[in-house]
């Protein structure tokens, strides 16, 4: 189906979102996939799986997105989602310093446990609550500052996060899922950062490797790679 509109080569990229609860992971995805935003979104339970295509000049990337729940109790399930992922979005909340601490933990865990070539983007969300929010109208958000004080809710400086991202060689963005600022750019940058070679090679053998290594029941091994292969040729 993907081939019908463009003869460009297309490939699937498995992407996982990680980060503390209520930093806006689902909102980023919702903005990217449906170009929509919901105030007071209810927390994700478990994980949501969504897909979205991203057109690059030379090829089409089909993102298979795992939007995970940020709550502590789901942390033990995270490996299931980042294992075998080619890209990760680690999200923090610009107005909440502890969320950056949590983000650092996720980055460290990914570097330790995820597949070696994984592309990681560090994303500071809720830019609309700060003075830098370009179209940021920081009013009305329940978590933010109320209208009477046009003050800056930013608690994490761009420099701090940026220098950390450079240290760890992560992509770095500040976004607003509410206004849509920078959201597509994150995904485009990730798509660009994924090496051509990994697109060609990882799907087939890579996937089955991981599945057989991690799968604890035989039937899973059978289903995992078969599914992956099917998706690969559908695009």
């Amino acid at each position: 189906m993907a081939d019908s509109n463009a003869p460009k080569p297309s490939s699937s990229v498995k992407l996982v979102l990680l980060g503390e609860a209520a930093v806006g992971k689902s909102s980023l995805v919702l903005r990217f996939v449906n170009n929509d935003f919901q105030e007071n979104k209810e927390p994700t339970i478990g994980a949501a799986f969504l897909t979205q295509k991203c057109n690059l000049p030379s090829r089409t990337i089909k993102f298979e997105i795992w939007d995970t729940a940020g709550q502590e109790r789901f942390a033990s399930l995270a490996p299931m989602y980042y294992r075998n992922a080619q890209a990760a979005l680690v999200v923090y909340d610009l107005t909440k310093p502890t969320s950056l601490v949590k983000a650092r933990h996720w980055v460290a865990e990914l570097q330790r446990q995820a597949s070696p070539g994984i592309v990681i983007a560090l994303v500071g969300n809720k830019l609309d609550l700060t003075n830098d929010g370009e179209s940021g109208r920081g009013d009305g958000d329940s978590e933010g500052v109320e209208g009477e004080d046009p003050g800056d809710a930013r608690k994490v400086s761009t420099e701090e996060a940026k220098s950390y991202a450079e240290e760890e060689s992560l992509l770095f963005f500040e976004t607003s899922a509410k206004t849509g600022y920078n959201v597509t750019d994150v995904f485009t940058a990730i798509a660009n950062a994924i090496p051509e070679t990994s697109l060609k090679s990882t799907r087939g053998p890579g996937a089955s490797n991981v599945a057989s290594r991690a799968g604890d029941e035989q039937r899973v091994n059978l289903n995992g790679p078969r599914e992956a292969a099917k998706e690969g040729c559908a695009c």
Partner: protein
Amino acid sequence: MTGIEDAGPSSGARAAHDEEPPPPLPPRPSLQPTPKDRASLQSKPTTALSSMTIQTLSFPDGSRGTFSTTVDHSAADDSAPPSTEGYDVSALGFYSIGSARKQDTDESMSIMSMSPTLRPPGDLESLLVGDMAKKSPAWMLLRSQSAAIQPFEVIRSDQSSTFAGFEREFDDIPDEPDRDWNDGDRLQLWKSKLKHYMILSSAGKPIYSRHGDLGLINSSMGVVQTIISFYEGAKNPLLGFTAGDARFVIATEGPLYFVAISRLGESDSQLRAQLNALYMQILSTLTLPVLTNIFANRPSTDLRRPLQGTETLLSSLADSFTRGSPSVLLGALECLRLRKSHRHSINNAFLKARAEPLLYGLIVAGGKLVSVIRPRRHSLHPSDLQLIFNMLFESGGIKAAGGENWIPLCLPAFNNRGYLYMYVSFLDDRPDSASAMDTSDADEAVAIILISPDKESFFALQKMRDDVVTELKKKGHLDLIKGTALKGRPSVTEIAPSTHISHFLFKSRANVQFCMPSLQPTFDSVLSRRRLMSLYSHLHATMHARHSHLKVLHCVSEEATSLAWITPVFEFYCIAGPNTSRAVMTQGANKIMQWAKREEERLFIIGGGVF
């Protein structure tokens, strides 16, 4: 809610005092008068109750004839001449006293409030019979003319006060930073709520409250904890007490205290069932071993953290109780009405696509079951399904997220020790509607739910979903399901033309499923729906009171006439306008019964797909 501070401890003590020497004659027909009626009795009895007040109070609801039927249609025949025999109040007296005498202790807690009924039954009887005789002829004439009055068109004044403010029941209490509100006002607002649920740990740490942030009500929580642990310490756990017009019911589950505070007149056992459902929701999040471990290691743990994100599930569950849910009341499920052949081929398509790791598969449209497939040895428990339906259809989280979901959850009635993994996909053909997902949309949303014990089986189940959808689309079943869901429930007049019955519930006991007609137009509003459900829950409580071997119950009040009928096969509850005669009522009931029998295989899923 001053009751907590003021009346609470004293009535608690009273309750315990009552428990020590068993009450000599505890004829508390707590389930006999309507719950609201009981509330009115509670407020009045001790102030020198004259016979006259009994008369006016209990006549509207109290004059119910009880008669048992063994043959289905005999009821209609019996009642053809509406004589006073139909209002055989001595039977009533006998039943209510007899059943009340055997009430279990938690019911007898509020004996105080029911003191007027301690009078010899004969007294009450003669009084009511006399009353009937006086009223009957004129009544009959009037009644024959005005059966068209809808239930709750006439509302007793004391009744309307019971539900005063119910429209505002679900409004949020403003948060701390809101400058327009001071703490006093917010506390006032909090106290004005008719229904509260609180969960706290036995160490006194607040875990959940339906209304108000925990900062606001911290002190109230403290008082509750003190009261409960006082009795706990005396090895005499407190089960409930009454303060003013509010009934407090307390459930202790391991390290957790659950408190329900209701001014809606629900029975203790109904409130207890609601608290149990909240407990099940917590287990569903944590599992029993995890919950036990948390508190075994550190009794002072703040459980809010492990439960983070599930507050909305608890609240939507709580609100469905407060709004009144037939499904919860009957402990049964509602199915989408489909032709037998259609259901059969949907089941088959579902079974054919079955993935290896599947445990349960469900197709659900707007909260109504379309198809179930399950292993031969396992059946699904309604309380587990209630948790799933609540998660998917009552709280918006899953549906609004879009995409497919992979949710670890524990189904406590299936196994409270471990997690299952639930694949959920809402079938939405219109991609543009993703933004417009409001509540009305949820009514027809079709979801496929696939449950597996294997946490790695997402893609296997995803493929199964694709196969099922392809198959259903090919045969046009998907459109059929959507169309039927959109059409909603049939109206009573479609089911039984020219009946005066306004609404009914029919539960098939064997299938643990129920059906009901559309709530529109009579019970459209939140308030009228609550009135209807209160009446149903009263009927239900009366029929299910321990040791009350009632088969048929006919209640007449100024507001509505109602009939409950229970056999080993079904439970039937129906409501009509206040002036509907018993004969008309039974006639309508029989018509509906015939309809239900005729349509049984369309209304209910019998067995489902088994593999």
